[in-house]
């Protein structure tokens, strides 16, 4: 943090104060800073101060072999890394003109939904903590860990799966994995009452969350909001339904929406979505054993693998919204350009600035967490 | 065939056949090695320099055998048995590998030298083996077994050389 940011600054003769939240602050997600102009407890203006996690991913990717980027991309978003590798693989597949085998597509769906479950559990915890409730936070993190156990089981890594590869996935599921998944889903469903009691229908939380950070549908669209944040404003838009990828068009699930666009709506959408993901995962458990065949199509030797000239824009619905990769190849062994269209920069920068205006100081953290923005993905 | 060659070879067989005691058998064996050694040594200056190593090695090996057999005869254990009589073997001229004994001529090449040496070792080996078979159990039998083994080992080494030089274009 810049040294001058350590002190609150009183501005001249007015009653306005400028203070700073972050980059190291319990009310901030990750390393992210926010500059506030306060009039008493009311925020006059909020300015996002991003860049603390800038690692230059897009540029780094231009210097690495196509396959090496697979190990790089999940790091763009730590809480929800799986969509990164899936969407990168999908983009490369599109340029190459190949398609992952069906079994791989089902496995990818499973991976994406598991990742969504993990990310939402994490967010519940984070959001609860900003209202001073720490037990749901511990629960969220602990239950997410059970999902990570499953990731470890089938991908070999707890957080960064690095499980996908253009053309499919890297290895077959271990024996008995689907049973384990089924047990986990049973457990998560059994936890629903606990979470509801302690968080979602807890009057203390409901009162704090309602009418906090309210976003209108119109503003949401103007600000480029996507994902659960958009659906909380009453717009039923989900890429899984509106522009289906993988095998989502064969799956039976609903798109939960809420109408009020406030923090409470957003967390309710996520709560409902988590159970929709469980519903999808149950279908995967049922369907996957009957889908035979390879899990990967062959790709050339990765050390001399020139992806033919072309470009592709692949997008998926991540736990945070529309995640897309725009990949350009000029026929070389490395990407010519990769652009990551992450949902968080819209949420954490312009939307947060928009919602901060007129909000109270104590709500800033909650608003930010209710938007579920991911600072490493903002900065990239 | 040169006179010397014949003496060193065919005649000694006949001599051996006539022998009755171990002493006589060993004497012939020793002279058998000695004539061979002299035969190879005599050939050294005659052959072309590029294959001289072959004859030199052969002469050296025969010298070793000569020394070995001589010392054997002098060893106390054998000395006690020198007067023992043994049934002599029937002569057997069949050589392994179907290589034929040739007249080596004035300027023999590597192949004919090897073929001659192989045939010679084969004959000696068989001779000692038969003597061993005829000898009663005990040190005498062991002595002949040992002689047969020595000649067999020698023959194996020669066969290896033969294969390398003749069949695969030279030692690698």
């Amino acid at each position, binding site marked *: 943090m810049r040294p001058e940011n350590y002190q609150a600054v009183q501005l001249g003769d007015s009653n306005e104060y400028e203070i700073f939240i972050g980059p190291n602050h319990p009310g901030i997600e990750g390393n992210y800073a926010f500059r506030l102009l306060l009039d008493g407890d009311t925020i006059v203006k909020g300015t996002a101060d991003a860049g603390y996690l800038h690692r230059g991913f897009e540029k780094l990717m231009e210097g690495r072999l196509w396959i090496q980027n697979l190990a790089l991309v999940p790091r763009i978003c730590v809480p929800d890394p799986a969509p990164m590798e899936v969407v990168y693989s999908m983009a490369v597949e599109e340029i190459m003109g190949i398609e992952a085998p069906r079994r791989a597509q089902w496995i990818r769906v499973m991976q994406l939904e598991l990742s969504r479950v993990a990310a939402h559990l994490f967010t519940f915890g984070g959001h609860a903590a900003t209202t001073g409730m720490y037990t749901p936070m511990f629960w969220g993190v602990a239950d997410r860990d059970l999902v990570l156990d499953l990731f470890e089981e089938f991908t*070999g890594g707890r957080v960064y799966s690095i499980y996908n590869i253009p053309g499919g996935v890297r290895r077959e599921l271990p024996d008995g994995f689907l049973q384990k998944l089924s047990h986990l889903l049973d457990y998560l469903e059994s936890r629903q009452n606990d979470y509801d009691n302690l968080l979602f229908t807890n009057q203390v939380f409901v009162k704090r969350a309602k009418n906090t950070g309210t976003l209108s549908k119109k503003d949401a669209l103007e600000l480029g909001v996507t994902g659960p944040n958009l659906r909380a404003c009453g717009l039923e838009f989900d890429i899984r339904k509106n522009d289906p990828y993988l095998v989502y068009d064969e799956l039976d699930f609903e798109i939960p929406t809420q109408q009020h666009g406030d923090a409470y709506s957003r967390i309710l959408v996520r709560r409902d979505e988590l159970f929709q993901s469980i519903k999808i995962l149950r279908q995967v458990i049922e369907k996957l054993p009957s889908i035979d065949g390879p899990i*990967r199509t062959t790709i050339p030797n*990765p050390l001399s693998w020139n992806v033919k000239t072309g470009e592709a824009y692949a997008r998926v619905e991540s736990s945070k919204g529309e995640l897309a990769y725009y990949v350009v190849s000029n026929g070389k062994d490395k990407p010519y350009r990769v652009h990551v269209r992450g949902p968080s920069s819209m949420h954490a920068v312009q939307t947060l600035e928009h919602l901060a205006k007129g909000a109270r100081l104590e709500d800033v953290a909650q608003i930010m967490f209710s938007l579920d923005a991911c600072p490493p993905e903002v900065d990239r | 065939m040169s006179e010397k060659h014949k003496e060193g070879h065919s005649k000694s067989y006949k001599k051996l056949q006539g022998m009755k005691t171990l002493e006589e058998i060993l004497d012939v064996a020793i002279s058998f090695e000695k004539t061979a050694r002299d035969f190879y040594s005599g050939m050294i200056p005659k052959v072309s320099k*590029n294959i001289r190593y072959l004859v030199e090695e052969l002469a050296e090996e025969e010298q070793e055998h000569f020394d070995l057999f001589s010392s054997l005869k002098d060893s106390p254990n054998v000395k006690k048995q020198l007067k023992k009589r043994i049934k002599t073997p029937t002569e057997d001229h069949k050589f392994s590998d179907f290589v034929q004994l040739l007249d080596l001529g004035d300027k023999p090449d590597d192949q004919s030298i090897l073929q001659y040496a192989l045939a010679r070792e084969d004959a000696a080996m068989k001779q000692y083996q038969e003597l061993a078979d005829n000898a009663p159990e005990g040190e005498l039998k062991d002595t002949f077994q040992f002689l047969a083994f020595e000649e067999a080992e020698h023959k194996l080494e020669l066969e290896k050389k033969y294969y390398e030089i003749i069949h695969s274009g030279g030692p690698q």
Partner: protein
Amino acid sequence: MKKIEYKDKGSILNPLKNLQFFARKPITEKLQPRPASASYRGFHINDMDKCIGCSSCQKICDNAAITMVEVPSIAEDASKGIRNLRPAIDYGRCCWCALCVDICPTSAIELSREYVHTCDGDETDSYFVFPQESGIHGLNFEKGWTKTKDSDLLDRERRPMQEMKPEDRIDNFDEIVDGFTMEMAVEEASRCVDCGLCEDACPAHMHAPNYIRSIYEGNLEQAVEWMYETNPFSHVCGRVCTHICESACSLGRVGEDGVKTSQPIAIRWLKRFAMDHVPKTKIKQIAKKGKATKKSGQRVAIIGAGPAGLTTAFDLVKKGHQVTVYEAQPKGGGMTRYGIPNYRLPEDRLDQDIEVIQSVGVDIQYNVRIGKDITMQQLQKDNDAVVLAIGLQNGRSTRIPGSENKNVKKAVDLLRMIPKGEEFEVPKSAVIIGGGNVAMDIARSLARLQKQKFGKVGITVSALETLGKNFLADDEEVKESKEEDITILDARGPVQCVIDKKGKLTGLETVKVVSIFDDKGRFAPKYDDSDKQFHEAEMVVEAIGQMADISVLGEELTEELEWNRGRIQVDENGSTSVEWLWSAGDMVNGPDVIHAVADGHRVATDIDKYLRKEKKS
């Protein structure tokens, strides 16, 4: 799922329902690390014996976490493709993606289920780890992420080479192998992991990884440039090289886990492809590159215009010396012309290699036999250095009874007659004695002549060695011979050439070979005398071994030279014990084109050094 309506206000009492948690047994996590999952990506393990030091792990590592470290205690074996480099991992950089595992050609490097390592103070170096089989702490943790067939990243299948069908090729000497198309060549080249084991293994150290890369990039001229740096016989080697490079290729390795078959890169066919697709005039320009602009004024005579002699000449001319090559035959190429049939190496390709060498300034005098037309003494007088590269031109005979008959021929003699167009009576039936590539060459050549003349093939090959066990000829040769209706009788030893009363050869008698080597691997044939066979034949061809015709030296020089077990003794630079004489090629190293080329370079370098010194003094 219970629905929560937005308008629900919730209750202050709801959280109290969770008071039941106070009655539950607390969950205690042990301090000890939890065992990781079966395919966990933990610390590396490396099987030192399986690892060949190819550095593929280092190349794929996205974080440059792998350094190849030289381990002097590991024995290198270039011809088998084993290097003494082994990977060391910097855990400050590693991201445990396991791409190193998935690319490893031998499945040597794997990840374990071990994941705890701490240290303090001056032990920070301990994050730089040299993985062994027992793991980084020697704790023998179980394996985690290992290679499976799905996760293997290498392209292990060779692009198939199109060949002429047996019925199309049996009555002519046209080249059998079609060669790659551009697309196939690029695909085949793309399989290379650029480990360079091929370059280490090649006697001439051809820059195979570089030219494979150039072919992959579609730059064939550059590929040829790489080739001419080390081999002026690239056309020949692109067709008939013994390709030690391919035996050493890391793609030829099979990992135990999951991956069952793997084929080495077709390095030889790629070389052939590039040579075939660059025009001769361009190749001539490439060959001239680096030629000295100033003449040294020194003269070198080379005896024998085979690969060894001409490579020496090529190098020496480029270094500014005046070189004359004397060849007893009417054309150059030595055994590659007068030993290898046209269907394996078309004459025009060999002609081109020689033409390129001549274009650089090498003077070849054909039909000049040293020792007869010019004496060695004369050569010594007229030149500053002389190179003897006469090869192994004389065939060995079994000398079995009857082998002196006029219809018992030597393979090398016949193979020399065919390209010269010299007439000989093609037998209706022939037996070949021998099981090496020369035996196959003469068998297949005679078969072709028979087909042309009589419409059918009557060739039997009788070899001491056993097929599939210790047979000498290449598998391809055996397979193709059989396709061409040639009968191969393995494990049979020749007894005698049967001659009838009129002195006419009627055939060969053979006996069953029970075993050919003893348990120590020494040649010690055992025969089964009860199993004798007679093979009727008008001609018996002996194709067992070859030797140099050293009569060229004359008695005096033979006596002056030092010898080593039948061959001229040379030092590692090809220099003989006589100051002005060098020797190279088959006659000192045994029959092989690429060895001859390598020899040529060595000798040329040494002669150049010698001439420079001589000039100064």
